[in-house]
Structures are given as C-alpha cells and as structure tokens.
C-alpha cells in the first residue's frame, strides 16, 4: 500500500504547521503514533543527517545509515546499512515513519518496498549547490522547521556571498582538484567543487570534463599547469595531510608543485556537500587565495570536527 503521493504533498506542509504550533503528530504515512512525538526518522544520507541536526530535529532520528558519522551522537544510533541499500527489516524494526535518503537508482528497490510498507521516503539530491538548498527546504518542510531552514539558507547564502566578494579583483588561479589519484579522478563542471572553486576565485583546470566527477588523463591536467593542487584522494586516518608535495613532487614543472601549493585535505572537508558549504568554500578560498583569506592552518586539513563548525 503506497501512500498516495498527492496526499503526502498536501499533508506535509499542514503537518509541519501543526508541529510548529506545538501540536501532535506530523505523521502522514502512518498512524501508529499517539504519544505526541515527532516522526521517527531514519537517515541514511550523511549530508541530510547534518541538515537534520542543524534544523534542531536531531532528537527525531532513531536510526542512521552506515556512512553517517556526523554529528557524533548519531554514531551511537542503530545502523540500517548503506545509503543505497538500507536494510528494510531494520528500518521497520525501528518503527520508523520517515526514511531520509539520497536520490539514487540503486536504492529504488528498497525505497519502493519501504513505501509499500508504509514508511515515507524522502529522497534528496544534495549533489549540487541548488540541490543542497532544495534538500534543506524539503527537510525543513517535512520536519516542521521551515523558518529554521529558511534562516539556515540565508546564513549559507550570506557566507558564500562573503567568500566571492572577497576574491573580486584577485587573480583567478588554475586549480586541479583531485578526488582519486589512481586512476586520476577529478571534479568537473556540475560538481559542487567546481562551483566552490569559481566562488573562491579559481578556475577548475578540468572545466571541459563532461561529468561532475570524471576519470581524466594525468598529462592533460598537468599540461594545463595548475597553480594549486588540492588532493582529497586519501580518506584514511593516517593519510598525508596539509601542505606537502607528496607523490606530486615528481612533476616539478607544474607551478603548484614548484611553488609548494599542493594541499592534502580530508575529503569530508571539501567533497561532501551539505550544510557546511560556506565553510567549505571559505577553506577553498584559503587554499586558492591565502593572501586574501590567510594561510590555511594545520587544523584545516584533517577530517572535519564533529557537528557543525563555526557559523558565518
């Protein structure tokens, strides 16, 4: 029994309004709840987990996906599997009303089953700047935190505008942003990384790639003589971090290598878009224009700290 989508669409804002007014259940898909609490949420999308926390709705989360590790307290919650294949039985076992997930083809099967079993599925696309803001609004609507969501969005826009305002007139530096080194994977146009590079006063040397993330030839990238290389290919706790040449040291003819502008950064600092976009863009600014934003500090390179870091 799939809950009629039109009904959901109509009922969600109403339910949200009820919560804002301090009333009881925003439940739309299920009527099991009668204790006056909010929806029981399982979130498998890491970006959405951070958004729910920032919206102040963290208490409604009863289960998380395996890849959700922020905020830290979510890590203690029951795990339901990967974002592309949540374990249907475990989600049901948590008596969840709402599954917040990433929009993905791979998850279609489990999403369909969960919907049929009466669990509302909110699939968010946070792979672009617009997607992040849309997802924030959708979560705000669904969780009855509309005004908080709008406030967060305003703060985020202000933070992004601040970064781009400060690099007006600064030279646009060529940036190679490495997502994987072997084989070489870079962020192309359409990725939030590409957008962040532009906002922070850089030019992505992979701007002619056709996909947001693409396998490219090393020589093609080196030949464009990047002035800054950001390498986020290594996610291990003991990975090389900070300003160093590392394996790029072999290519001494590349300006970024010659001028020691190669940075090794934990991927969650820059790669996974979400509520921290302004913070990420500011870090991108420090890497591309240290003369404007100040040299990055050692703390900028490791995995992001728990929870949301400093507002704008």
């Amino acid at each position, binding site marked *: 029994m799939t809950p009629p989508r039109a009904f959901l669409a109509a009922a969600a804002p109403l339910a949200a309004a009820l919560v804002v007014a301090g009333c009881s259940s925003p439940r739309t898909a299920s009527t099991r709840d009668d204790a006056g609490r909010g929806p029981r949420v399982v979130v498998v999308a890491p970006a959405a987990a951070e958004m729910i926390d920032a919206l102040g709705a963290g208490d409604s989360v009863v289960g998380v996906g395996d890849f959700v590790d922020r905020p830290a307290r979510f890590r203690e919650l029951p795990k339901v599997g990967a974002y592309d294949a949540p374990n249907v039985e475990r989600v049901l076992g948590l008596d969840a009303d709402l599954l917040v997930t990433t929009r993905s083809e791979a998850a279609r099967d489990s999403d369909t089953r969960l919907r049929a079993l009466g669990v509302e599925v909110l699939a968010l696309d946070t792979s672009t700047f617009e997607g992040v803001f849309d997802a924030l609004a959708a979560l705000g609507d669904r969780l009855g935190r509309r005004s908080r969501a709008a406030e967060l969005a305003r703060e985020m826009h202000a933070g992004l505008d601040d970064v781009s305002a400060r690099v007006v007139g600064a030279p646009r530096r060529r940036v190679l942003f490495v997502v994987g080194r*072997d084989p070489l994977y870079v962020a192309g146009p359409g990725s939030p990384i590409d957008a962040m590079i532009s906002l922070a006063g850089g030019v992505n040397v992979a701007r002619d790639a056709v996909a947001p993330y*693409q*396998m490219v030839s090393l*020589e*093609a990238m080196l030949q464009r003589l990047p002035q800054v290389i950001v390498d986020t290919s290594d996610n291990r706790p003991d*990975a090389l971090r900070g300003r160093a040449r590392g394996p790029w040291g*072999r290519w001494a003819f590349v300006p970024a290598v010659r001028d020691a502008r190669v940075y090794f950064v934990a991927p969650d600092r820059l790669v996974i878009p979400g509520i921290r976009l302004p913070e990420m863009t500011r870090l991108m600014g420090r890497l591309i224009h240290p003369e404007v934003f100040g040299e990055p500090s050692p703390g900028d390179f490791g995995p992001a700290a728990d929870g949301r870091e400093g507002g704008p």
Partner: protein
Amino acid sequence: MSRRPPTAARLVAVCAALGVFLLLAIAAAVSLGAGPAGLRALLPGSAPDPVARAILLEVRLPRALLAAVLGGSLAVAGVVFQALLRNPLADPYVLGVSGGASIGGALALVLGLGAGAGLPGTLGLPAFAFLGALGALVLIERIATVDGRLTVYTALLTGAIFNAFSAALIYLLQSLASLEQLHAIVFYLMGRVPNDVGMRAIAGLGAFALAATVLLFSTAREFNALSLGEDGAAQLGVDVERLKRRTFVLGSLLTGLAVAVAGLVGFVGLVVPHLLRLLLGPDHRVLLPAAFLGGGSFLVLADLLARTVAPPMEIPIGAVTALVGGPFFLVLLRRRHATHGPV
C-alpha cells in the same frame, strides 16, 4: 623442425620488425597525447619548451615503457600457458595466480596500504598482490601435484575454482570496505597502467620480465614438442615434469608481477599470442620473443588510445584492449580461414 634452418634468420627478422614496431609505438605514445606537446619539443634546434619536454619525458615516456613491460609479460605468460595447457582459451589469468594477486591487492586496499605517503603507500599494494600471487602459485602447485607429477588438468581446474573462490573473497572484502576503499578495489581490478611508478621500478620490472622471457625462450623447442602431448614430448626426450614446473612458475611470476602493478588488464595475454600465431605460425622459438615485443606494442598503443580518444578524459585500458583487440582479432581470424582453412 630441422628442415627449416632459417629459423635463426626468421627469428632475427621477426624480432627486428617487431622491435622497430615497439619503438614506433613508444615514440607515438610519447609524441601524442591529450595536449599539444609533441615530439618536436625534443628535437635539437627547436625552441626550448620545458613543459612540453617534461610532459614527454616525465609523464608519457615512463607510462609507455611500463605499458610495454606489462604487455610483454602478459603476452609471454599467455603463450606459455597456452602451450602448457594445450588449450587455446588459456590466458595468464587461468591458473589462479590472478585470483591470488587480486585478493592480496584488495586486502592491501582494505587494510589501507594502497594509497598515501611513504613506503607502505607506494609498495604496499604491489607487494601484497605479489605475495597473493605467490601464495596461489604454491597452493595450486601442491594441489595439482599427484604422485610427484604436476597434472595440468588438475591445475586448470584448481585454478578456475581458486579464481571463483578469490572472487567470492573479494566480494566479502568489498562489503567490509568503506566507500573509498570499494572504489579503489573496483579500479584496481579493472586494470590500469599506473601513473606513479618511477623509472627505476620500471627498469627493475623490465629486467625481470626480460629474464623470465629469456628463460622460457631457452625451452622454446620443448614447447614445440609439447604440442604432441606430454607422452609425445617425453618420447622426444623432453623432461616434461621439469618443463611443466618451470613454465608454471615463470609464467605465474610474470602474471603475478603484472597484476600486482596494473591490476587485471584483460585480453592482452589471450589475444596477442593467438594473433602472433596466426601471423607467424606455431614455432615457439619465434613466438616467444615475438610475444614479448608484440604484447608490449599492443598495450602501449591501447594505453595511447585510452589517453587520447576523448581528452581530457581517460578511459579504462581494459575497455580499449577488448573493444579494439576483439574485432581486430576476429577479422584476422576470418581472413586466415578464407585463405588457409580453419586453424
């Protein structure tokens, strides 16, 4: 065989021709690429262009040389395994060595040895993969040895089952891996010519591949005899047991090293030996050196295509070897049938 004394002359002619072809392939791989840098940058008298020079000599040349070594190793392993197993479908991966190497490589990636700084970062994955290959080699040799004799049939079956077992183990490792590790394993198994192998390592690999090829070449006559079957070869005075063991070990070492460095680059070890047999006939005295040079050329050109077909993108080399090599081989096979009847 003795009716054809010009074998030495043929060998020289084939080696010279394929050697020149390999050099041309490497020259093409160095001079063509994703960007405008061309061979002219290296010519004396041209305006010095340090960037183009570096692209050619530091980026393209090592990669072309590595591709040549890998392609040569895999093609030689393919030739000797096809001879050993007397099975046209045999390739370097059929005897389970690749399975062992894949397990080793995937394990290194899950343990976090496959990337990053320092010695474990650069050597961890190839070392683990090579140990995996050696482990598989020893295991399969033990199982396939019955009454002191290496039974080829059992080795083939054991290899096939070991490869299936490895695949299962790798699925298990993948399910335990993080998302990044999962990607790394998938790319590793897909096969690629790595960018970050230094010249000294390439020289070492090349020396090893050449030595193994020379050792195998020294028994080329015995491979020819083996086409009569093990009993037939024994009647011609071949120490079949010794030949089988040597071939198994050397072929596996060549394969293990190639997989350790480049992952599972498919098709080279299957098609190049057949291609050369179609062109040059079945004499292993010519076939073995030809496989080294021809396999090298094939992989150099495949890698060149992978880099240049749609710049700045690069496509996986395994896709090129199969997509280009497959149809080319079939066309040649049909032509051959048309003129000579079924081979």
